[in-house]
């Protein structure tokens, strides 16, 4: 097997056993990028020379017997993550030539853990979108069928892992931007608890909703990755000093007696039948393995998208104010249509006379949604739902109707409003395209999500399929 097709775990083994070097592993990924990127547009920028330096350094450390958690592992970064000396565009023409003078905390942590930063990945500009089509550059394509969208906004990162262009990648999830592309590309995607991973240095979309996640091929890899990125950061006041678990330690814990909540609102009208059946099969698997399925209700689900589309654009309108072209970047007229739409929406809902009717009311509903989940977790240990009500769609299908695009986040956005963690795990394929479930848990219980995801994954091994041999 080519080393770029391996998981973090297997690649680390190979490196340790000297089956290949970090430079060879990097070369395999670069070769793959060379071959596929012009078609898939996963990467906006490949950092060949910097990555080579890092890989060489990793080889040196490996030869000295060092064992860092991601030593020599090629990792791609969503192009929202500030990288010192390397262009960071946010997928927008406004920042087309912006080079940050500093590394985001997560980037620093990944480098310290020995990771090799291979490049910056494509996204919906400013992370505004669910399909990748809002990129100000060429849109990224689904490796399982290039006529279809890969999901967004962390499109390129999902594709890079799915198409074996790197071993793992980072993303951001504000309303589903990690989980949706993960489920559209047969990868494992985590949206951690709000504040679990530092946001410092990552270009903000909506500050109270942004969660810093990542893509891997397996659940185990995903847990391993969080071991590196999680924790308090003095530069981010919203990261609590909450203890960081060892996220790999509970992976294989028995799930006998585990209560899995199934919210009726997530299986109602609007959900594609084949997805419903697929998720029900997954639930059946859990039942057969000793878990208990509990019917629950999250009564304010119907208001979630409306609430989300008040709070999120409000914060967006303020967060995008700094892009005035004075200190860096180009002028504001270079913002794309979706960014302009959100700036206008947010500016409107925060204005005098409208604040109470929109923003304030949305904040109240947000509190009710948080309470919905709190109540649900009194009855169930975790909640399992589809990631999205629809399968990947064809390019252009929803671009004329922003509202239908927004609705693809109907199952994922409530998680962000509540600040709880969600793990997207592949559950197979429908008509040749990937599909996934999301496992939701109480705040800071990522351990439990990895456990539940892993039990399913070792029995199904969807990650063994590659888009090349579909």
């Amino acid at each position, binding site marked *: 097997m080519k080393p770029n097709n391996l998981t973090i775990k297997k690649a680390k083994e190979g490196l340790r056993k000297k089956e290949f070097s970090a430079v060879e592993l990097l070369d395999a990924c670069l070769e793959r990028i060379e071959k596929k990127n012009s078609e898939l547009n996963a990467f906006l920028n490949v950092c060949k020379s910097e990555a080579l330096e890092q890989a060489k350094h990793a080889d040196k450390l490996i030869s000295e017997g060092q064992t860092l958690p991601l030593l020599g592992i090629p990792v791609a970064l969503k192009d929202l993550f500030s990288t010192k000396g390397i262009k960071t565009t946010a997928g927008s023409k406004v920042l087309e030539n912006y080079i940050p003078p500093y590394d*985001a905390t997560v980037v620093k942590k990944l480098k310290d853990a020995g990771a090799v930063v291979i490049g910056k990945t494509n996204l919906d500009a400013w992370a505004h979108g669910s399909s990748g089509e809002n990129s100000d550059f060429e849109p990224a394509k689904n490796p399982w069928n290039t006529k279809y969208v890969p999901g967004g906004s962390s499109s390129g990162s999902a594709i890079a892992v799915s198409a074996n262009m790197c071993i793992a990648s980072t993303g951001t999830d504000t309303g589903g931007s990690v989980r949706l592309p993960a489920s559209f590309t047969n990868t494992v995607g985590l949206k951690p608890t709000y504040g679990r991973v530092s*946001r410092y240095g990552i270009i903000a979309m909506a500050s109270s909703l942004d969660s810093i996640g990542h893509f891997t091929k397996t659940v185990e890899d995903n847990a391993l990755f969080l071991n590196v990125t999680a924790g308090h950061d003095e530069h981010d*006041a919203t990261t609590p000093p909450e203890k960081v678990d060892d996220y790999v330690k509970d992976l294989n814990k028995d799930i006998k007696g585990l209560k899995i909540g199934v919210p009726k609102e997530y299986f109602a009208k609007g959900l594609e039948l084949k997805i419903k059946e697929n998720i029900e099969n997954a639930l059946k698997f859990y039942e057969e393995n000793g878990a208990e399925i509990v019917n629950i209700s999250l009564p304010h689900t119907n208001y979630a998208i409306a609430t989300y589309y008040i709070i999120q654009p*409000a914060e967006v309108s*303020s967060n995008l*104010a700094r*892009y005035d072209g004075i200190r860096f970047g180009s002028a504001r007229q270079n913002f794309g249509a979706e960014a302009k739409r959100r700036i206008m929406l947010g*500016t409107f809902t925060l204005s005098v006379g409208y604040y109470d009717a929109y923003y304030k009311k949305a904040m109240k509903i947000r509190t009710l949604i948080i309470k919905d989940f709190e109540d649900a977790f009194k009855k169930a240990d975790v909640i399992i739902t589809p990631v999205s009500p629809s399968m990947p769609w064809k390019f252009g299908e929803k671009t004329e109707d922003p509202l239908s695009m927004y609705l693809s986040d109907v199952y994922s956005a409530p998680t962000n409003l509540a600040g709880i963690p969600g793990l997207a795990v592949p559950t197979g394929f429908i008509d040749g395209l990937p599909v996934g479930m999301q496992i939701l848990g109480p705040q800071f219980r990522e351990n439990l999500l990895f456990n539940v995801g892993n039990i399913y994954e070792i029995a199904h091994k969807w990650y063994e399929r590659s888009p090349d041999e579909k």
Partner: protein
Amino acid sequence: MKSKTIIGLEVHVELKTKSKMFCNCSADYFGQKPNTHTCPVCLGLPGALPAPNEQAIEWCITIGLALNCDIPLFSKFDRKNYFYPDLPKGYQISQYDQPFCLNGFIEINGKKIRIRRVHMEEDTGKLIHEKVDGENISLIDFNRSGVPLVEIVTEPDFDNAKDVKEYLQKIQQIVRYLQVSDADMEKGQMRLEPNISLSPSPLSSPSGRGQGEGNWKLPPYKVEVKNINSFSFVEKAINFEIERQTEILSKGGVPVQETRGWVENTGKTVSQRVKEEANDYRYFPEPDIPPFRFTEDKIKKIKSRIPELPDTKLKRFIKQYLLSEYDANLLTKDVGIANYFEEAVIVGNGKLNSKQMANFFINRKIDIDKVLPAKLVEDILASLKTEEIDSDELKKVIQKVLKDNPSIEIDYKKGKTNALQFAIGQVMYILRKKIDTQKLKNLILEELR
């Protein structure tokens, strides 16, 4: 037509914390090379986040407590959104509806001035307009960006410029006593914005408004004056405004609601910006900083660290050291001098009384940074030691001085007491000896009678 002057004040005080409000850059920016005290946070670079400075927040609360404010146990930061080149994030982190301190007061000339709120925010960068290579350009220095700023807002409780000036001096004195700010006006560490209006007609029935407004109606306009960098200018600017507005009102007009700027060399205010509507800053809770929940204990702790404040110290000095209010005032103006004085009193105990000490202090300039209190006591004792002089000889000299300087007698009889000082000086000059001045004075008076 009778009218009443209504003045409210906004005062900004820069705190002298080591680091800025939301990053680790040094807050000591004055006179530094432009853009050397900057980082991703205070430059508003993509992805940067604010990490609040705890010291600054405690100091803001300290100021609030010193101004008799309530300290709510819940507080938060908000974003004030507006575009300006000196504001790198496109919003200022400030406090909107739940500031750290509310409803305080301070006494000025026996009048209670209510403090509406004391809140915390960050300073902006500084625009510099210059001609470079023959071209007029604007430069931005971000060294000041993010320096902690405390805003103190009063109710419109002032009715004259003199009280305003005294209030400002008191605020400056208090923040210096608290050692949270140097409040140096010339360095921009204290900035003043009075708003002035005249109420033309008394209400027929007493209103339920605050005491400062009495039963005068709040006028339908407000004039804010900016750009004032000294206490005496604030007095002048207010008096200028009162005159200007009175004239407009007397002609049956209503002054325009606007922001005016004080122009130092003309001694006038000029219109800067007409405010037709209040700015819409689209305030909303700052999502990057979790709200604050304080405990009663925490507030008590902050309160317990507040040193004796000027008013209390003044009263104590009068009582404890048997000083006149005037003397006590001079000695407590500056907390450094007050502390030094008290130390010197302890050192001089038994040899000098506090009144003697105070006289010496007030009549001579003492460099408290150079002379130790013990040395000072020695100096005072030495100065009090006088030489006995034969009284006949002394009398002769006095008579000679008065004869040679007939103006002394003339001036003295006109009531010019300075004449006596002159005579004393002349006598001492001739004798070249230190004499008990009181005794000498009495002898001269005898001769003059």
